């Protein structure tokens, strides 16, 4: 059997004394797009942060395997170099750090961690220009400090552009649709779909079915009270949209 890109086994995590993830199990084979839907506060975003390795969360039980390798002991930068990418729900504005400087540092740090040569500046410029063109990220945006003064749509486009440049094996998209109007949603979805290549896997976290019309998932999971309570094909998302989350509450008991 092929090694799944992501395998989560009985994952429990808490922040301070509060347990938020209560036994998550999930397998994403190569090339598949899985969606996680759930209401606010169900722990969806926590799952994305725990995957990326945010310090505030403590994993009390379970395992996360990325391409067969346990990443729980890795620092966030090591996880990124191992192929994990998190598209933030709220990308952070960092004044004083130029977007281009940041992109170059990120790409080269990952290449270095994997034992590859650093990119030459002309090659880097070309890559950024190409990726930017796909996502309507113009040179004016690239000149600004990282995410500073970007509109909600610009921030999300910039996130997807980073993903296109960093070429992760697993992309976690945390509420990428939030704050997007329909035009921006289409641009972002197009960008994401262009990165579906039969190998790269994605975990799309959302609480609206709307996004899944544009990024069509192979599997939909319903998340409630810190775990997956139901899984199905893309029609499950439509059922959820019609009936709400109430039907799924407490199912996993």
């Amino acid at each position, binding site marked *: 059997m092929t090694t799944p890109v992501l395998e989560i086994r009985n994952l429990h995590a808490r922040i301070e004394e509060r347990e938020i993830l209560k036994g998550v199990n999930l397998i994403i084979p190569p090339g598949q797009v899985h969606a996680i839907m759930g209401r606010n506060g169900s722990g969806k975003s926590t799952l994305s942060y725990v995957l990326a390795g945010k310090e505030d969360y403590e994993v009390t039980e379970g395992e996360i395997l990325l391409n067969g390798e346990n990443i729980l002991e890795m*620092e966030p930068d090591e996880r990124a170099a191992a192929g994990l990418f998190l598209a933030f729900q709220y990308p952070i504005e960092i004044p004083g750090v130029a977007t281009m400087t940041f992109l170059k540092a990120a790409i080269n740090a990952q290449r270095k961690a994997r034992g590859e040569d650093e990119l030459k500046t002309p090659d880097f410029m070309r890559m950024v220009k190409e990726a930017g063109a796909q996502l309507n990220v113009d040179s004016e945006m690239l000149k600004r400090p990282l995410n500073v003064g970007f509109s909600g749509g610009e921030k999300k486009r910039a996130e997807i552009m980073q993903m296109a440049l960093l070429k992760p094996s697993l992309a976690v998209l945390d509420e990428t649709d939030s704050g997007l109007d329909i035009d921006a949603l289409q641009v972002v979805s197009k960008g994401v779909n262009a990165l579906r290549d039969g190998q790269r896997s994605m975990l799309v976290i959302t609480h609206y079915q709307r996004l899944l019309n544009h990024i069509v998932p192979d599997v939909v999971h319903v998340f409630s009270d810190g775990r997956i309570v139901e899984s199905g094909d893309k029609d499950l998302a439509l059922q959820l949209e019609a009936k709400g989350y109430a039907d799924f509450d407490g199912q996993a008991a």
Partner: protein
Amino acid sequence: MRANFPVRLGPAEESLIAQLKAAGATQAAERITVAGLPTRRVESYHYTDLKTLLRSIPPLATAANEASAPALRIPGAYTLMIANGVIQNASTAPAGVIVGKADGGVLTTRDDVMVHVNNALANSALTLTLENTVDPVIQVERRVEGEAAHVADALKIFVADNATTTIIETFSGSDAAHVGNHATYLALGKNAVVTHITVDLSARAATHFATNEYHLADGAKLRTLVIHLGAGLSRTNVFPTMGGADAHADITGLNLVSDGQHADITMETHHAVPHTSSQPLFKSISRGRSKAIVQGKLVVARDAQKTDAKFMHQGLMLSDEAEILSKPELEIYADDVVCGHGSTCGKLDEDSLFYLLSRGIPKAEAETMLVRGFIAELLDPVEDSELNEALQGIVDGWLLGGK
């Protein structure tokens, strides 16, 4: 009262008094004999108690026989040097620059020991008169060389109406327990546009004192940047006077302190006439057990209506033992002004750090990026690209070296 309770004088004060007397500065000597060096009870030295911090004063400097390597090379700059108080001027001045010499005592008298001592001990001053816009960056290297020495030197700059220039002063020298006391008086003519940068690159054993006094005529625009990173003890006084309508000053400064260092920028800006503005912006980064101080006072004269001035000091603490002190003061005698002050202090933002890490950037590099970003607001406005790069290099050297 004081006569009944004479202050106990320490060795630093004794040497200073002897030096002042020998120079014939009886008044300055008398002042220190009576009051001693300022302690924390003197408001303007509250965080920089010289009586405690200044243990000794080395002998007055004699002409230097040898010189250390230049502390900072800026390609294309026109460079002058004052070494151990002696003015050295080898290269040909660019068009419009008149280099000269005048008597010392360039600072306006005020109740400040650094000012008194400099005015008393600086025998001569280097003078620069800029008759028109000068394209190359002007660098004045001020050095203290050889055995530990006490140096008082002075620089007086006149920038003509409508002229534009960029001047950087660097302070450096041999690795000894020097006490440097440097004065700069800079007068900006009408509509002159001046960038003036002072960078302390002295050895850690040294003490660096500097006073930068500015006078701005109508419509003049000044950008100043003080960078402290070399000396174990440093204090720069920044004293701008906004003396003409529509004058504007961006008064900025950066304390970079590592374990064992104490750096103090003390600003007092006088808005003397109506319709002037100033934007004082200071940043301090402290690591190890160190102390960074910014005192910022805005004085608005009674007639100086429509003054617009806001003081800001932002501190970044990189260790648990770091100390950053901020003291804003407003003294406003006019009734139609917009004046304010703000101070912030904190560690590196954890969310920003996580964001950079999540993109694969290792922690040390991510932290450096964030600190650079914090400082960018001060360095970015320095337009000359060679100078900007040189300053960035200095800051990077600090970030990557030591703790």
